[in-house]
């Protein structure tokens, strides 16, 4: 069953009506195909117009939609020969941050990314995509492994942020994120990062110091959650919508600021309405980004990646 967001209520009503009609037609044999088609067209128009002008706060809700494709969904839909790899070789396996070898569009790559989980049990097991230090240390290990074998690294970013917990702090959350950033910046193989849902703060940038940063059309990427920002700067979490607006956290804003390279189109009504199609769109964009990096020498990759981040905020603002 489709989970509707608050602002999707009119769509929910129309689609509910369509379902009812279908149900009625099943039993009575009355031909109402035309009416269903008419309502469907209306629902599509409504979805299109709603999604064409989502506010940043609405985008935050779409980005966190429970039915959006997560790491494992993307893997199922578009990665061949996926072979999960586990553990940081220091402390533990952190299933909030998945990783493994596989093929995207025929190209062998190392995939790493946050996994939020898809049902209540899964969400708890994956800690809602909030990785601990061992998650980031695993990511580093896999990046270096990829480098050793000349494989590109592809990351899927989807996290509310790094896990705020006693254990995470004890084991050096800050150091793990810092080293992960450093590792990503120094990688001598192509590195593409995709912000697929929620790009939350330090936990997100740890996996996003890439040659190409691409982002789903309705994903968000921010230094702090709108709620967190509102509770600090407005002293009231209820101002989250205003904070979302002010933070410029949408893909469209970030592209204007020169902080991401490409926006990946989502199916009508958001990736959550057709996760498989969304994953295909993503795989295509990843393939295109990797193709742009083909043939670059390792030294050039590292140098250009560094220059790209150094240029941020210096040029192209506005």
């Amino acid at each position, binding site marked *: 069953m489709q989970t509707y967001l608050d602002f999707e209520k009119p769509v929910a009503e129309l689609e509910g009506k369509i379902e009812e009609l279908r149900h009625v037609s099943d039993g009575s044999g009355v031909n109402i195909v035309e009416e269903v088609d008419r309502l469907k067209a209306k629902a599509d128009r409504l979805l299109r117009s709603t999604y064409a002008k989502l506010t940043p706060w609405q985008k935050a809700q779409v980005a966190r939609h429970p039915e959006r494709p997560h790491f494992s969904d993307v893997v199922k839909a578009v990665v061949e020969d996926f072979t999960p790899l586990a553990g940081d070789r220091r402390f533990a396996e952190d299933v909030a941050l998945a990783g493994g070898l596989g093929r995207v569009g025929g190209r062998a790559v190392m995939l790493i990314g946050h996994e939020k989980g898809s049902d209540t049990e899964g969400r708890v097991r994956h800690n809602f995509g909030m990785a601990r230090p061992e998650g980031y240390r695993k990511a580093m290990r896999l990046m270096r492994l990829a480098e050793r074998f000349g494989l590109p690294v592809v990351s899927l970013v989807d996290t509310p942020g*790094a*896990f*705020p*917990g*006693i254990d*995470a*702090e*004890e*084991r*050096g*959350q*800050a*150091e793990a*994120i*810092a*080293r992960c*950033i*450093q590792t*990503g*910046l*120094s990688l001598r193989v192509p590195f593409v990062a995709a912000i697929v849902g929620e790009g939350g*703060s*330090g936990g*997100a*940038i*740890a996996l996003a*110091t890439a040659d190409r940063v691409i982002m789903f059309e309705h994903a968000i*990427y*921010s*230094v*702090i959650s709108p709620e*967190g*920002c509102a509770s*600090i*700067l*407005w*002293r009231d979490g209820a*101002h989250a919508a*205003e*904070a979302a607006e*002010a*933070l*410029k*956290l949408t893909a469209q804003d*970030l592209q204007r*600021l020169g*902080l991401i390279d490409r926006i990946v189109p989502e199916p009508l009504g958001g990736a959550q309405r057709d996760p498989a199609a969304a994953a295909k769109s993503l795989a295509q964009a990843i393939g295109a980004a990797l193709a742009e990096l083909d043939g670059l020498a390792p030294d050039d990759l590292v140098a250009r990646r*560094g220059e790209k*981040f*150094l240029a*941020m*905020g210096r040029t192209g*603002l*506005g």
Partner: protein
Amino acid sequence: MSWLTNFVRPRIRALVRKDNGGNNLWHKCPACERMIFHRDLDAANAVCPHCDHHMPIKPARRLALLLDEGGWERVEVPAVPVDPLRFRDRKRYGDRLKEAQTETEEKDAVIVVQGRLDGRPVVVAAFNFGFIGGSMGIAVGEAILAAANRAVTQRAPLIVITASGGARMQEGALSLMQMPRTTIAVDQVKAAGLPYIVVMTHPTTGGVTASFAMLGDIAMAEPGAIIGFAGARVIEETIGQALPKGFQRAEYLLDHGMLDMVVHRRDLRDRLIRVLGLLTAGRRAEGAPATAMAALPAPASA
């Protein structure tokens, strides 16, 4: 502590307060709550003479404490776009910036100087927590980059003294991007074979900790400094349990392997001198030109 400092002065303070309201002659230690006469506090460089609690000091004071007398030079930090997002919460970010600038007489939260430490050229970047909580936006990123660049061109060690609440959220994702940018900066220093030393002071949290601050060749901290990634309140709210005693304090990080040493403020200069002397006594340092500071005036004390 003497009877005089422990008892008589607080008594006097109480009397004085009654007589004429606020004055600045006496300070109350936020840790032990005892009163400290302003001259005593000043002489101890804002460390409580009763309990050793380290209170914040301004960057200028910090530099005076660390560096050889005289012969410093400010390192220019390139101008940055002001309020790139035109951010406004209950207040305009532009106004917050102006207020902080007026109050601190600085452009942003980090100042960079080139000076000498026991005669040795060093570059120091020092955070001012009083400037919007020492938060890291584009200007702080550029300051760390400028400091790293100066260290590399002068073949001088880089010392960064942190005090920051984390990212400057009024600059949105641009502030998040300072994490990779400052990482690139300190990696340039390391690649040049130069020492990069971090001195973490109270508090050092968020994106500052999770980037260049945790990448020092040597990681030092002042006693009692809060150092961490997530804020204590956020952690408490998330896990719904009380935090252990001393959580995220410098000593706690030392116990958990995240720091090399916790150094009392009065010992910091000597410790830096010793560490730098030892680090650069190896093979790498031999090739470094000794004339790097030729353009600077000789230390006044020499």
